[in-house]
């Protein structure tokens, strides 16, 4: 292959496939980690001491060690130690293990954001709901939830932008995400080798993706400015 114009469609096609995997990991993580993070935040706020202590230790470990190590352990532990292939074959297996590691890791980060967001709601809000005879469930969903969302949007935006970039860590267990796809052209793939420029394209994918997310999340923040 010689000219850039000939190589371009091949590279873009390959990066698109990789980026699809990146996006898949991103959305699966987000969808899993948001509700699980909320549940963990409830557990850490629980009055049952052993429960809250247990989850606080889990959060400490998960936030205190690199996601990359967690990813490696979660992927290799079942096979190497238990001699069980629980993740499935090839790319499917790598994706499943990545999804579990990412959801677990991000749920812990999100839970701390949720916890902060809930604890910043004045206690009077809950009391007002109580004296009006509202149930705990109604108080959470009808009174506190939107206030919590408003409180957590700025830190959550940070965390979500980081997640987009962190998906590249799955490269360590050879998940074929967009960086893996870009790197392939350095080593040699589809007749292209020693090419660094596909990596710049790779960066562009992240940049555009995070640009769009910034606009969406910023819009949500703006929308919630109708109350104080």
């Amino acid at each position, binding site marked *: 292959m010689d000219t850039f114009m000939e190589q371009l469609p091949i590279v873009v096609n390959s990066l698109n496939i990789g980026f699809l995997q990146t996006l898949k990991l991103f959305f699966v993580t987000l969808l899993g980690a948001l509700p699980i993070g909320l549940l963990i935040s409830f557990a850490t706020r629980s009055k049952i001491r052993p429960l809250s202590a247990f989850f606080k230790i889990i959060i400490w470990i998960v936030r205190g060690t690199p996601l990359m190590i967690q990813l490696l352990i979660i992927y290799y532990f079942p096979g190497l130690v238990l001699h069980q292939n629980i993740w499935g074959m090839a790319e499917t297996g790598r994706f499943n293990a990545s999804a579990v590691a990412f959801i677990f890791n991000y749920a812990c980060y999100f839970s701390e954001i949720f916890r902060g967001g809930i604890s910043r709601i*004045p206690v*009077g*809000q809950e*009391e*007002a*709901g*109580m*004296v*009006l*005879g*509202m*149930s*705990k469930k*109604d108080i959470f969903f*009808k*009174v506190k939830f*939107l*206030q919590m969302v*408003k409180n957590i949007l700025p830190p959550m935006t940070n965390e979500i932008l980081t997640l987009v970039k962190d998906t590249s860590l799955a490269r360590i267990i050879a998940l074929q995400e967009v960086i893996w796809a870009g790197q392939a052209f350095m080593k040699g793939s589809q007749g292209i080798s020693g090419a660094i420029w596909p990596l710049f394209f790779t960066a562009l994918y992240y940049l555009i993706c995070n640009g769009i997310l910034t606009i969406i999340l910023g819009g949500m923040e703006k929308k919630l400015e*109708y*109350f*104080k």
Partner: protein
Amino acid sequence: MAILEVSHLKKSFGKTKVLKDINFTLEKNEVLSIIGSSGSGKTTLLRCLNFLEIPNGGVIKVNDEVIFDSEKPEYKQDKVIRENRLNFGMVFQSFNLFPQYTALDNVMLARKLKAQNNFKAQKNFNIADLKREFEVIRVECEGLLTKMGLSNRMDKYPHQLSGGQCQRVAIARALAMKPNILCFDEPTSALDPELTGEVLKVIKELKEEKMTMVIVTHEMEFARDVSNEVIFMDGGHVVECGTPDEVFNHTKEERTKQFLGKF
């Protein structure tokens, strides 16, 4: 017959005894003011009536029916407490309006949720009936806000309202649940002096409509003016109680005299 009867009410936080054997009754359509310095237990007493705090001892009766008895665990069940606390409405010092809802939605929310929950409990219901019920609630709540002088503020959010307006929305919100007894916890303490009057005026109007009320207040003039009955609390005890004339003009207890002397 007394509408409210509180006997031997006790409450401690850890080792601190905040309420030590509180006894009083309140007649229907009457207004009771509770005065006393901060830390005397008057706010805790109010919070016990609304079950924001669960008393450690004592019995509370409303309309001669026991709604709380510290000896009987069934009165401490979440569901029973939720039902029984609706005997009381509560207006907080800091309003505690829900910021994400308009004034009208603040007033309607709990009523609508209650209607909805009642509806879901029925076996075969149709949505049209619930919508009709919501419409009834809306008309009623708009009426309450109009009565509070807020007919042109209904679609405003709390941060767009003045403190006095917020407190009036909070009063309408409490009234929407149709409580037997309306409680006020220092309703004007968070207000600028020029806004205090509009809230006190509303409370006076409620008295004229025969609303039974318990008011914790620092406004001595107001307490004297609006109450049928005044309680002076100190150190977790009811030190003195009687008509405003008895408590303010013919004070018996030394501690009450000291307290009133500061005003």
